[in-house]
């Protein structure tokens, strides 16, 4: 009997290893499909959606680190000057440090940047396995958990969107958030073992540096189990947990003090990922109500499965304690993971679908919490599904029951296949000859009449025309004025990889400097009559680069003249009919503008004298200083909430630089 048991155990172990190997191989294959090595090692940064913005952050961080050992700077090239790295990229500091570190060992920054994305993909099965281990899952359950994480990673529309669109740091934070909960759970369960508390300290401090919003996702479950076990914990364990917290707070010092100093520039605005409670139903039925709120396409099959199976598992665990004689006995009989996963599932769902009610949660883009919810609920789901899928469960079935099960699987299968094909259109057999029809019928699209318009959701390099455009602009712009760039990614690309002064990039910049962004001022760039001229003059605009067709802007022949087309006319460059001038008051020229520094020259007036002061069309910032023997003052402007720079007194030659003095409000 014992021998038979051992044989069975050996076979089970072999099966588990084989299964795990197969799942990991599939995951890695998919990772290499979605983040192709040809892109990763191309020395060109990933270009898709927010990656372009993040590459700009990384570039600026690299440069300011090189010059001043800081992660923030005054960037005169973007939005007429703004504080790069102070507010916008608090969720990207870890990646910036990663690139800086790899750069120090001679890895190309773009390769380092791309490697981070690939690494996050490759970590998924590893972290899933670790989570399974931390939550004491059996072998079969661990295997199911790795499968669930992998499937969620690639084929849940929102999880896929998160890593595809560049929210890669959130994608990693969501995984590590569950790891942190596992470490906390084990720290509370096994009070004598130090490795869990050490691991917890490391992971939470990394998360505090990496993506602070994950605290919202894991706060409720962490607090719930801590409070439950508080009485049982000794003083040392309490102290250790407080130490973890302190370390995490310490880690935020990398970005928090600077961000606080610049916080007054922030706007109470939010654009994305803040659905209302009715979206829960839309999500359940795979309906895309608003791409801005839940990603461009809704495919929630795996999410619904883990949520349903996870909920049933939690209910089972909870019910196990229901028959106990006393509350204490019930708590004892109940699985100790119940509270943690219930709190995690409930709080993240609540945040995701009702977080838009409160400003404080709305600005965090609450729908993002769907990712830790799905990954977290996959744990109890794996427990249940691991149980249900035992061969012994299926062997004893009657023939009609087996047929019924097969029938149900056949009915579900198309949904899964379509999920896969949606994200991998290059293997799709569809000729996609109906794109036009699809885009025309929005509600019919919503009803599934046509698939949502989609594109290859795998990472790409910047397009070739972007380099041609950059070359052309480099030749023509110089210090003659700025370039308005309509396309978000193109704007960020130009800003990150050239010295061209750009008014563009992310439109939804929630700080005052966004006033310099034409398409933020009006989504179609429609500034009637003199307003357009006034805008172009205010920001010294020389060229306007259009990709989307905004007829009302492009037909302003009084203000724009066509200069050149790129990408077979899909991107068009117009030259403005004004004479752009960086000097708002006084006469002079900008000799050069680089990160943290503007060099200029002031011309004498007709009387041969220099004016008392000059005003520049660069955004003011409190940390800017002026040489030689001059000072910087703020010039308020009715149409720009930041205001511009006044140099007092005017010098024939002057240099404005970032003094990094944050003692006063910058």
């Amino acid at each position, binding site marked *: 009997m014992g021998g038979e048991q051992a044989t069975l155990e050996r076979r089970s172990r072999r099966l588990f290893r084989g299964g795990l190997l197969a799942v990991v191989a599939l995951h890695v294959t998919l990772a290499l499909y979605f983040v192709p090595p040809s892109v990763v090692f191309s020395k060109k940064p990933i270009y898709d959606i927010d990656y372009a913005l993040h590459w700009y952050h990384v570039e600026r961080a690299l440069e300011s680190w090189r010059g001043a050992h800081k992660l923030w700077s005054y960037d005169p090239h973007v939005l007429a000057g703004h504080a790069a790295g102070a507010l916008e990229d608090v969720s990207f500091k870890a990646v910036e440090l990663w690139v800086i570190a790899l750069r120090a060992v001679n890895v190309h920054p773009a390769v380092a940047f791309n490697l981070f994305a690939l690494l996050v993909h490759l970590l998924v099965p590893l972290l899933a396995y670790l989570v399974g281990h931390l939550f004491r899952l059996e072998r079969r359950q661990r295997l199911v958990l790795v499968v669930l994480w992998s499937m969620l990673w690639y084929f849940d529309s929102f999880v896929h969107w998160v890593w595809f669109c560049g929210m890669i740091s959130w994608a990693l934070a969501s995984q590590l958030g569950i790891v942190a909960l596992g470490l906390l759970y084990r720290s509370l369960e096994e009070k004598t073992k130090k490795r869990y508390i050490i691991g917890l300290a490391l992971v939470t401090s990394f998360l505090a540096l990496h993506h602070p919003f994950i605290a919202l996702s894991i706060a409720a479950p962490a607090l719930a189990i801590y409070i439950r076990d508080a009485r049982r914990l000794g003083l040392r364990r309490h102290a250790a947990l407080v130490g973890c917290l302190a370390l995490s707070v310490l880690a935020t010092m990398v970005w928090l003090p600077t961000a606080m100093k610049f916080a007054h520039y922030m706007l109470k605005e939010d654009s994305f990922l803040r659905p209302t409670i009715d979206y829960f139903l839309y999500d359940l039925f795979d309906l895309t109500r608003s791409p801005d709120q839940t990603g461009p396409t809704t495919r929630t099959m795996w999410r619904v499965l883990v949520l349903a199976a996870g909920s049933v598992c939690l209910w089972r665990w909870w019910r196990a304690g229901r028959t106990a004689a006393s509350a204490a006995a019930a708590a004892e009989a109940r699985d100790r993971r119940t509270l943690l996963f219930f709190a995690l599932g409930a709080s993240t769902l609540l945040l995701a679908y009702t977080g838009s009610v409160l400003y404080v949660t709305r600005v965090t883009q609450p729908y993002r919490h769907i990712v830790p919810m799905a990954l977290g609920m996959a744990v109890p789901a794996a427990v249940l599904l691991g149980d249900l899928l035992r061969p012994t469960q299926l062997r004893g079935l009657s023939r009609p029951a087996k047929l019924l099960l097969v029938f149900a699987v056949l009915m579900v299968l198309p949904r899964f296949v379509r999920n896969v094909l949606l994200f991998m259109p290059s293997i799709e057999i569809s000729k996609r000859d109906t794109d036009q029809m699809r885009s025309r019928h929005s509600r019919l699209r919503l*009803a*599934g009449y046509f698939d949502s318009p989609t594109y290859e959701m795998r990472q790409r390099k910047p397009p070739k025309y972007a380099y041609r455009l950059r070359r052309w602009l480099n030749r023509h712009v110089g210090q003659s004025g700025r370039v308005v760039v309509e396309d978000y990614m193109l704007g960020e690309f130009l800003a990150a990889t050239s010295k061209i002064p750009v008014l563009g990039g992310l439109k939804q910049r929630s700080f005052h400097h966004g006033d310099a962004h034409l398409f933020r001022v009006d989504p179609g760039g429609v500034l009637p009559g003199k307003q357009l001229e006034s805008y172009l003059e205010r920001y010294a605009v020389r060229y306007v680069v259009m990709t989307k067709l905004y007829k009302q802007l492009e037909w302003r022949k009084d203000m724009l003249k066509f200069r050149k087309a790129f990408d077979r006319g899909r991107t068009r460059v117009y030259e403005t009919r004004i004479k752009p001038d960086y000097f708002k008051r006084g006469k002079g020229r900008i000799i050069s503008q680089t990160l943290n520094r503007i060099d200029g020259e002031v011309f004498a007036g007709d009387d041969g004298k220099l004016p008392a002061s000059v005003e520049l069309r660069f955004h003011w910032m409190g940390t800017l200083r002026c040489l030689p023997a001059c000072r910087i003052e703020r010039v308020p402007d009715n149409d720009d909430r930041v205001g511009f720079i006044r140099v007092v007194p005017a010098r024939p030659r002057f240099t404005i630089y970032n003094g990094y003095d944050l003692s006063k409000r910058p």
Partner: protein
Amino acid sequence: MTAPKPSNSKATRLAIFFVIYGLHVAVVFHAIRPSVIESPLNYEGVDYQTHLEQTKTIAYLLERYGHLWGYDPNLLAGQPAGLIFDVDNKLHFLFSYGIHRLTGARLIVAFKLFPLISSLLAPLILLLAARMLRLDWRQSLCAFGLCVFIWLSDHATRFMWGVGMISFATASYLSVLAAALFFRYLTEPSIRRLAATALTLAIALNAHVWAFAILVVPLIGTYVWHWRKCEDKTPHIGVWAIALVALGANLYWLAPALRFFKLVAPSGIVGQTGPWYLLTDYLEVLINAFNTFFSSPHTLGRFGALFAAFLTLRSMRREDDPRWRLGALAIGWSLFLAFFIALIPGLREMEPYRFVVPATLFAAVLAAPWLCSVATRELYAGLSPAVRALLIFLLLLVVPRVAGHIFYAVPELIPYPSSTATLHALPRVPGLQSPQQVMATDLSQTTHSLRPVPEIAMKLARYIDRLPEEGRIVVQHWALGELLRHTTNKSILGGFPDRRLKHEAAHLFRRPQDPRLNSATELAHYLVRYNARYLVMTDFHAVIEFQRRLFEFKHKIGPHRIYRVRHRGNYFMRGNGNVRALINRIEVRDAVAHKDTQQLVLRFHYLRTMRCRPRCRIFRVGIPFDDVGFIGVEGTPTLPRTFILENGY
């Protein structure tokens, strides 16, 4: 499978019936609204334009000439109406004309009533078919519900009755009933069943000629099998009587169509589905909209029915139930037609994909026994909690597919998203306000209901009708061509592109690769050859619209651009005169024969039944790109100044 099940009480059965049918009626009335039926405008669906044009022409021919076919000189430079192309419109015509004559209702209203009546009848007919196949009430009601679901949400079925292929949809469910009745008659012969089978078959063939294709193999197969197994009991005379009645009831259109069979031209374009579409349809993946009816596939009901019907037939076969053969033949044959005949030259013209509809409806009826056999408390009670949970999870994952199909049937059920506030709702920079109302979408595009022809198209029709000059109108968009034909007095070169008639050679936009579309010289010849006077373009076509040497821009109505053709030709290829063309009749005045040949050639398609009077006769004159040729006229002995060409039948 055939084990007796506890039967529901009559009241319960009735309640279930009325609930299901009530839902069906509600959705059908939502889709085909009485207000649209009453309006003087046709449905917008493209095929409805063709069928109304045919109905109006045949009604005219019947009243004026007493025939159901004739020669229409004002479409495609003259084409036979009611002969080959509209053998799929007979029942629809008879219904419309009958209602029109009997009740005095306008022909167009009667025409538009047909899809409503057909849709309302569909599940009832299929319920009757289920009963004829000896399904008990529980199974029959299950089949009934499944048929309702499929009729409303399967994209192919829905497309058919939405776009105007209503006759084939009608023939499909009538074929199921005919097959069921035939089976019942073979196994339990009676005069009543004989009459019912013959009548149903005759009506099905009247509804659409391809009812023959649907039924030929299942009926003959069942008959032959029955003959072999139960030789003594086979009612041969009855079977042949059924065939003769069905044939006899359709001879009125079949005989003339066969007489002109040589005019048939190969022109299969849409619905060309190969075997791989079976898989992609199952997976609901769109490969080519032209082949699978211009929609991403919605096939949950179809494949649910097919899988369940397969299991039913498997069970029946084990029990040696003779219904399995009929079922297997009917479903298998229709699926073969749908997914294999596109590979067979000469059969592509049948638009193979259409046959998924009868396959699905057959399957829906036969799926019910298996579905009912697994939807029992006993089976559920016998499952372990784990398997129950698995089943529930799987069902949960199917729910969005079901919901997707319901939303597909009635998109209005989805609350329309409020405008998504992104930048538009953000506070602007003071002093730079330029409020811009962001219209979310065109709400008119958000329904599956049959809508009337848009006003812009009618405005175009009124404009075209008022154009003073003689000559033909080339129309790019085919449904618009049909609409202009039946709403104006103009002669149209356009309309349905694959009419299976050689006469479609006069259609410039029939095939994108047509050399006349891609060569300025050929295009110029085409315009003169067919005496084209105006051109109506809807979708931008650079090769055509940049030919300013050939066209001058005249007017724009909505998306339609009207160009005037520059050439100064007329309706005479040789000779000269004045022409007035009416259905079945071309009047020529002031005719002057060509001085060399003393003949006159009209730019109208030749038809051998046309006769010339007085003292003249016609002959065929060959022309490039067109096998039909034009009508040549010569005098006997000299050409009269005035003569009439009329269909002599």
